[in-house]
């Protein structure tokens, strides 16, 4: 009996099967509850970890077996060009405010994250894992791995940031008198990527469109900053 279980958990498709099952269960829970805390990635990840622990599969084995899913992150990054393309007509009239705010915001977010982490004693690997936390996940993971961060930590921080940003963003913006849909949307997408974009879509279409734009442009801008920094170093 134990042998049968072992051979099952060592099968190359075992990890993909566990991940897909956990994902579907997490999606179902999220749709039923509509609760922003129950982000499918967060719940799906915890479920996957529990299942792997139960079947005594370690992360090295899981990593190797789930290569199929890892490989799709690249094309998913390229696919972000499509929402960006659809948002282009909207920023044409607000080009200057959008680009200025995005540049200031991206530098500020990166700077504050790195400074706060450093001041409170985080080491380089942890700081570099935290730095791209506001960037959409496929891009954040690339940037983190490239600068000595830990991809799995970054994936977790990106998720937590999305939930925090989507929960606090709308209230914070209202409290500070930010009422224009373009400004609210851009901030939600910039600070909380896809989760913030979903939250913005609940306000109205204009807010949602600017959030999608904020999300993809923040990803590109942060990658450019990293590239510039990497070249100058």
């Amino acid at each position, binding site marked *: 009996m134990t042998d049968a279980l072992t051979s099952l958990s060592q099968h190359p498709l075992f990890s993909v099967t566990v991940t897909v099952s956990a994902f579907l269960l997490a999606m179902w829970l999220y749709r039923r509850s509509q609760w922003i805390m129950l982000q499918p990635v967060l719940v799906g990840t915890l479920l996957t970890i529990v299942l792997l622990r139960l079947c005594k599969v370690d992360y090295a084995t899981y990593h190797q077996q789930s290569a199929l*899913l890892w490989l799709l992150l690249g094309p998913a990054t390229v696919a972000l060009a499509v929402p960006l393309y659809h948002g282009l007509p909207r920023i044409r009239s607000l080009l200057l*405010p959008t680009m200025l705010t995005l540049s200031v915001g991206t530098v*500020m977010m990166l700077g*504050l994250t790195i400074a706060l982490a450093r001041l409170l004693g985080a080491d380089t690997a942890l700081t570099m894992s935290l730095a791209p936390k506001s960037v959409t996940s496929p891009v954040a993971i690339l940037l983190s791995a490239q600068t000595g961060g830990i991809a799995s930590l970054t994936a977790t921080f990106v998720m937590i940031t999305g939930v925090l940003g989507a929960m606090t963003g709308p209230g914070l913006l209202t409290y500070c008198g930010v009422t224009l849909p373009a400004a609210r949307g851009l901030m939600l997408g910039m600070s909380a990527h896809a989760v913030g974009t979903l939250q913005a879509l609940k306000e109205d279409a204009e807010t949602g469109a600017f959030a999608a734009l904020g999300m993809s442009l923040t990803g590109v801008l942060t990658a450019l900053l990293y590239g510039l920094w990497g*070249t100058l170093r």
Partner: protein
Amino acid sequence: MPVVSGLLGLLGFQLLGTVISNLLLPSLPGPIFGLAFCLGFLCLAGESLTRPLEAAAKTLLSYLPLLMIPPAVGLMDNVDTLQDNLLPISAALLGSLLITVPVCGWLMQRLIRAGKQP
């Protein structure tokens, strides 16, 4: 079939991006170059060429949460790091968010209103 031919397009842009990244600027990841090429293509090409790309992108992006699970599962090897660094992690995550969002939201609103008043 449009999803599959669109996927081929996305893969092509990514591979092209990787080549360019390796040749010119290794510090900028290949998929980011791929994204830029894909955006350029969408702006220039006709609808019959862009429709498959849009279909593939829509499908792939709707499964983004699934693709994010494998990286995040690595958490099981990093629980100690999280526990030992709770203060810097929560301060960095919350602090940067609570300062940047109101400041830049206000900035954007000011800039839009300034642009509208001649």
